[in-house]
């Protein structure tokens, strides 16, 4: 017997958050298995899952129909299916309308919103149990011939009566009936997960979800044999007829750039050329090197061939705006470091200065849109975003979405709650997942946590959590990826509200955009740019110079010497413990060394075991060999070790015979495998390909392992180059302008690895005079003050805990008119509240007005708030009996209220006692030889557990002479966990490692000496 054909037209995926219980890919694959003619993905007021479905459909050769389900506030449930491009446009428009009318994550539509009748769409009406004739008339009237009645039997009683009823309405209203399935999952087996999602959605334990759950698991992709038993043949046939009329394919969508960037009479190509020429004159006023000119011509030709001009023009426009406002920015990404981008001002990486081959970054055979991310000063990125909205309008510009998915912890929490576990028990379980090491919840972990994995509840929990991990939970906004359209964006993809007011996001994420070849411009925020701009402003203001990132002297040997010494606290990217440990061995000598340095000291390359081979080859301890000329061409610049993402792809092409397209898939798989897996299929292909080309299995495996290591962390070379420039610029500032460098860093906090206290101490060690925060001299920000010689750093009131910028501005304004007489004068003229003045008192910023801290605080607390008309009352009251603070008390108060002290280091006060306990200073360590057993003590300023080094913990101790770096092996750390985590003043006995100018103490015994410092509030930044 012939099984009737069928196309499922009503099916939601897990992009109908907390309702759909299968991934779009699973639905597609299952529909294919069952021999469905087509499958519509009709998420509720959303198309967020269709791109994934489309990719799966392509893979399986299935017919995907794009649609959406709607529950109208005043009426029926509808399913709209796009027949053609115009239908897709109407679908996107109505989704946008519904989403924009409601809060984030919700929608609101009523019959009036369908007044245009959704041209180009089939409209399935899913009738309610009791059908009002008026609804039937509305459906018929609104959608006419394109309307259908969806007959959905899902195991309810009274099927025959129901079908008869639908048939009757159909005949009376002339609306044909079509069979559909209200599918929520690809197989019946997802029933438990679907119930779970319902419970999570309702925030109620499953046992109490009652009739909110579905009574059965019929909402899956049912076998066609079964459908044939349920539905009349004609209704099944109708589903196929409708599906066949749906010809819209997602790849019809193409991106059309904004037109307004090209002036009348110009083509995009001619305009881009004009702008590039103009930029060349600015960049190279003395004339352009032939090599560069040739480079530019090649790039322009490539851009023209791929028709990428509007993209470059768009980025140029955004960057020009930033420049006009004095907002520092720097491009990175595959196309950013082209010569053209240098001319357009998108990047400051000078192609004349760097021995890089730029066509690597845009290539004709890599069928991939150019990628330019632009970093802006983080505090001013908002201005850029507002500019884009203003220029293109909200209808044409929106942010890409980020799909927030379930991770093990969130999955455990939600599943645990739905299974009715107690909060504390759930926390205990989630805690067991603390050191998470895969994408599945493992039984061992649970057993370690004292949970019995065999207990029925826990068994269910494990199964459900494993299913739930990776399920999308909601859409969030991408940090800064803008999509800008020529016409209305909502014809391309629906737009919805984001959590931030006045922000809108599209329903697709960056992978979706990439799949469809749509372009986005990344507008990102970077704190270091803020810091650099501030430092440059300060330097230029102080010295009358006119430095910019581009004009700072390049390749300054003193800068490199400083970097080689690892004297890099506060310098971009190379200030971490791992970087500092590397620098003295690596000894970067030029800009390209910085590029490699930035890329190599990353979790990916470290895990892929690339660092040590590279260092050995660089120092000549190991010969540089290439298994073939092809490999040499790819890896020569990095001494045979793949360091950049591009190199991985090139190896796949030249050594394993990948096509550029496959290499591109490989790149995407590398980026995602940690989240989703999926590298395995490339493993075989890569290794087989390399073996076939005569490479050894061992070499192939090594390359594969290295590629895997890139994971999410791998750096493309162009990114590394952009970052390296920031490394150089910030290092230059630290080297030549330490006061401005430190002030700008302090003004940009929080940022980087170090606390203000460490930054200030570092500046003082470099000879900077640091002056205290004081209402008589300080602004909100830290500033430079003139001295006979180099500038002094005046701490700003921003360091005073609990103070605010507005009050600081009032103080500065009042002070400019006349210096303050006393505290009352200050409070009156600067209009300070009691909290504000108390914060200043506690922070010691009133010392110049009112003497010792204790007295100041008493006095300040007694200043009454001004009363209208009467002014500020003054009281006569008894003299308080208050002691003057001791040095230690002052110091502790400094730490508590400013986070730093300009007095002696707390350990200086304790030195005698520490010496008595046999502790050396950090400075003395430097004079001790490798392998000695040493004792050292200091404030814990940093604890790090790098993801790369298994179980190893790095700690940094600080004393009055500097820092001591500790390495704690796992066992040592575990055994002394309490001291390690609890001690603020830590003493260590260990073995000194003193190699390549790098000092480490490999810790043995730890001692907690915190009581020596009383309540000294040294907050350390733990586990960043």
């Amino acid at each position, binding site marked *: 017997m012939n099984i009737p054909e069928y196309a499922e037209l009503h099916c939601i995926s897990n992009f109908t958050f907390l309702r759909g219980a299968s991934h779009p890919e699973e639905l597609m694959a299952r529909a294919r298995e069952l021999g469905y003619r087509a499958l519509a993905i009709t998420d509720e007021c959303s198309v967020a899952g269709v791109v994934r479905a489309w990719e799966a459909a392509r893979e399986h050769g299935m017919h995907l129909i794009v649609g959406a389900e709607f529950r109208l506030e005043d009426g029926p449930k509808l399913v709209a299916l796009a027949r053609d491009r115009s239908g897709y446009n109407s679908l996107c428009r109505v989704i946008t309308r519904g989403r924009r009318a409601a809060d984030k994550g919700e929608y609101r539509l009523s019959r009036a919103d369908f007044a245009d009748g959704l041209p180009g769409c089939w409209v399935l009406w899913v009738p309610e149990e009791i*059908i*009002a*004739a*008026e609804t039937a008339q509305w459906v018929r009237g609104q959608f006419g011939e394109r309307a259908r009645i969806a007959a959905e039997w899902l195991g309810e009683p009274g099927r025959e*009566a*129901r079908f008869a*009823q639908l048939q*009757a*309405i159909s005949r009376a*209203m002339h609306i044909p009936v079509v069979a559909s399935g209200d599918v929520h999952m690809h197989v019946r087996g997802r029933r438990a997960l679907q119930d779970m999602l319902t419970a999570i959605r309702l925030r109620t334990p499953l046992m109490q979800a009652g009739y909110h759950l579905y009574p059965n698991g019929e909402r899956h992709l049912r076998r066609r044999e079964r459908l044939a038993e349920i539905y009349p043949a004609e209704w099944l046939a109708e589903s196929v007829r409708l599906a066949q009329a749906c010809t819209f394919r997602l790849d019809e969508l193409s991106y059309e750039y904004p037109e307004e960037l090209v002036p009348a009479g110009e083509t995009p190509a001619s305009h881009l050329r004009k702008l590039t020429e103009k930029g060349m004159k600015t960049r190279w006023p003395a004339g352009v090197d032939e090599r560069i000119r040739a480079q530019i011509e090649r790039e322009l030709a490539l851009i023209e061939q791929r028709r990428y001009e509007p993209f470059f023009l768009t980025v140029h426009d955004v960057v020009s705006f930033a420049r006009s406002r004095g907002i520092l920015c720097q491009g990175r990404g595959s196309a950013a470091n082209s010569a053209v981008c240098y001319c357009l001002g998108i990047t400051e990486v000078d192609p004349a200065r760097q021995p890089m081959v730029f066509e690597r970054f845009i290539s004709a055979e890599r069928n991939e849109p150019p990628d330019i991310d632009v970093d802006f000063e983080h505090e001013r990125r908002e201005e850029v975003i507002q500019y884009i909205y203003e220029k293109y309008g909200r209808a044409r510009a929106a942010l890409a979405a980020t799909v927030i998915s379930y991770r093990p912890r969130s999955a455990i929490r939600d599943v645990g709650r739905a299974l009715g576990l107690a909060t504390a028990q759930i926390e205990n379980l989630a805690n067991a997942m603390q050191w998470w090491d895969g994408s599945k919840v493992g039984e061992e972990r649970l057993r370690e946590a004292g949970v019995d994995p065999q207990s029925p509840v826990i068994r269910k929990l494990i199964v459900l959590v494993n299913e739930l991990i990776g399920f999308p939970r909601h859409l969030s906004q991408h940090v800064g990826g803008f999509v800008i359209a020529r016409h209305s964006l909502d014809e391309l993809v629906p737009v919805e509200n984001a959590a931030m007011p006045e922000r809108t996001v599209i329903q697709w994420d960056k992978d979706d955009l990439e799949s469809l070849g749509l372009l986005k411009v990344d507008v990102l925020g970077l704190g270091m740019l803020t810091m650099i701009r501030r430092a440059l402003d300060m330097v230029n203001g102080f010295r009358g110079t006119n430095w910019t990132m581009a004009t700072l002297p390049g390749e300054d040997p003193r800068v490199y010497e400083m970097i080689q010494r690892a004297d890099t606290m506060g310098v971009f990217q190379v200030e971490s413990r791992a970087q500092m440990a590397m620098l003295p061995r690596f000894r970067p000598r030029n800009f390209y060394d910085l590029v490699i340095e930035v890329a190599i000291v990353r979790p990916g390359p470290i895990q892929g075991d690339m660092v040590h081979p590279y260092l050995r080859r660089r120092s000549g301890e190991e010969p540089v060999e290439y298994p073939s000329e092809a490999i040499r061409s790819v890896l020569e610049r990095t001494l045979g070790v793949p360091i950049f993402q591009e190199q991985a792809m090139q190896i796949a092409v030249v050594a394993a015979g990948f096509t550029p397209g496959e290499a591109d898939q490989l790149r995407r798989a590398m980026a995602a495998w940690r989240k989703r897996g999926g590298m395995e299929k490339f493993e075989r292909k890569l290794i087989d390909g390399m073996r076939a080309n005569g490479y050894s299995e061992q070499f192939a495996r090594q390359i594969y392992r290295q590629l895997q290591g890139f994971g999410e962390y791998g750096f493309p070379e162009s990114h590394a180059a952009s970052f390296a420039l920031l490394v150089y610029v910030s290092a230059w500032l630290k080297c030549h302008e330490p006061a401005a460098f430190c002030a700008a860093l302090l003004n940009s906090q929080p940022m980087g690895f170090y606390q203000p206290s460490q930054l200030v101490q570092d500046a003082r060690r470099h000879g900077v005079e640091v002056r205290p925060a004081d209402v008589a001299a300080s602004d909100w920000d830290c500033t430079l003050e003139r001295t006979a010689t180099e500038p002094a750093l005046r701490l700003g009131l921003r360091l005073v805990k609990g103070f605010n910028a507005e009050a600081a501005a009032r103080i500065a304004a009042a002070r400019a008119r006349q210096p303050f007489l006393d505290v009352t004068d200050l409070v009156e003229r600067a209009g300070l509240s009691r909290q504000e003045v108390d914060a200043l008192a506690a922070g010691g910023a009133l010392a110049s007005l009112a003497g010792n801290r204790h007295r100041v605080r008493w006095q300040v607390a007694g200043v009454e708030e001004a009363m209208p008309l009467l002014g500020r009352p003054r009281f006569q009251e008894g003299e308080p009996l208050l002691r003057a603070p001791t040095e230690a008390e002052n110091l502790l108060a400094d730490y508590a209220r400013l986070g730093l002290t300009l007095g002696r280091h707390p350990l200086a006060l304790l030195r005698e006692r520490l010496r008595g306990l046999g502790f050396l200073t950090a400075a003395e360590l430097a004079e001790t030889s490798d392998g000695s057993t040493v004792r050292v003590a200091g404030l814990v300023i940093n604890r790090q557990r790098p993801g790369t080094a298994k179980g190893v913990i790095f700690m940094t101790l600080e004393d009055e002479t500097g820092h001591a770096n500790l390495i704690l092996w796992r066992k040592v750390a575990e055994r002394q966990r309490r001291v390690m985590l609890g001690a603020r003043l830590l003493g260590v006995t260990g073995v000194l490692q003193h190699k390549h100018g790098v000092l480490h103490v490999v810790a043995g015994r730890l001692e907690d000496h915190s009581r020596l410092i009383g309540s000294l509030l040294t907050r350390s930044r733990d586990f960043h």
Partner: protein
Amino acid sequence: MGTCSEQSVKLDSLPGVWRAGDRRSVSEHGNFSTGFKELDECLPGGGWPLGGLTEILSRRNGSGELRLLLPALVRLSLRKGWISWVAPPHVPYAPALAAQGIRLSRMVVVRPRSMRDALWAAEQTLRQGAPSATLLWLEGGDEKALRRLQLAAAESGSWGIVFRPQQYARTSSPSMLRLAVDTEDDALRVRILKCRGGRPVEELHLSDHARFRARCQVMGDDLASNAFTNL
């Protein structure tokens, strides 16, 4: 099943539901509507007699005896009357009763271990007074026992319903009203065996036409309602 509650609601909206002073009243405590028009017309007082026993005889449990009573019980429930189920043959199923409109909060199920206890319990609940109903299932029971119950109900004015097997139709009984009930193709067949103040009726067919109506309610459209007559 949907019909019962539907009709009862409609009937409940009529004035004088507790027809205490009805012209045809014979029971001093009044009667009230059964929810079936045909049956009401056959009963003196136009409904179930209060202040006494109603005896319902059937061949087997589940032959429509609850369907017969439900409209009245629902209305009693709306008046916040207590309903006691004494020695029911099965569990009175809460989801179904609630769907009919019975207030579960005013319902008590008594499961005595012996018939003696059952009779005793029913007597206690019958003493409770109006508005209340006591439903009692008896496999046997002599006249003396029923007389005690009849007295208790008469004293307090509450309504007692005794369910007994069909074979007791021929024995004498002190009940005010005796009915035999049966179902036939979804219709109720009722015989009035004894009726104080009225006369026996051979056969009444109480059917519910509107079984599908609730599921296919199409409001005020000729075309569509036309369509539904096809059902």
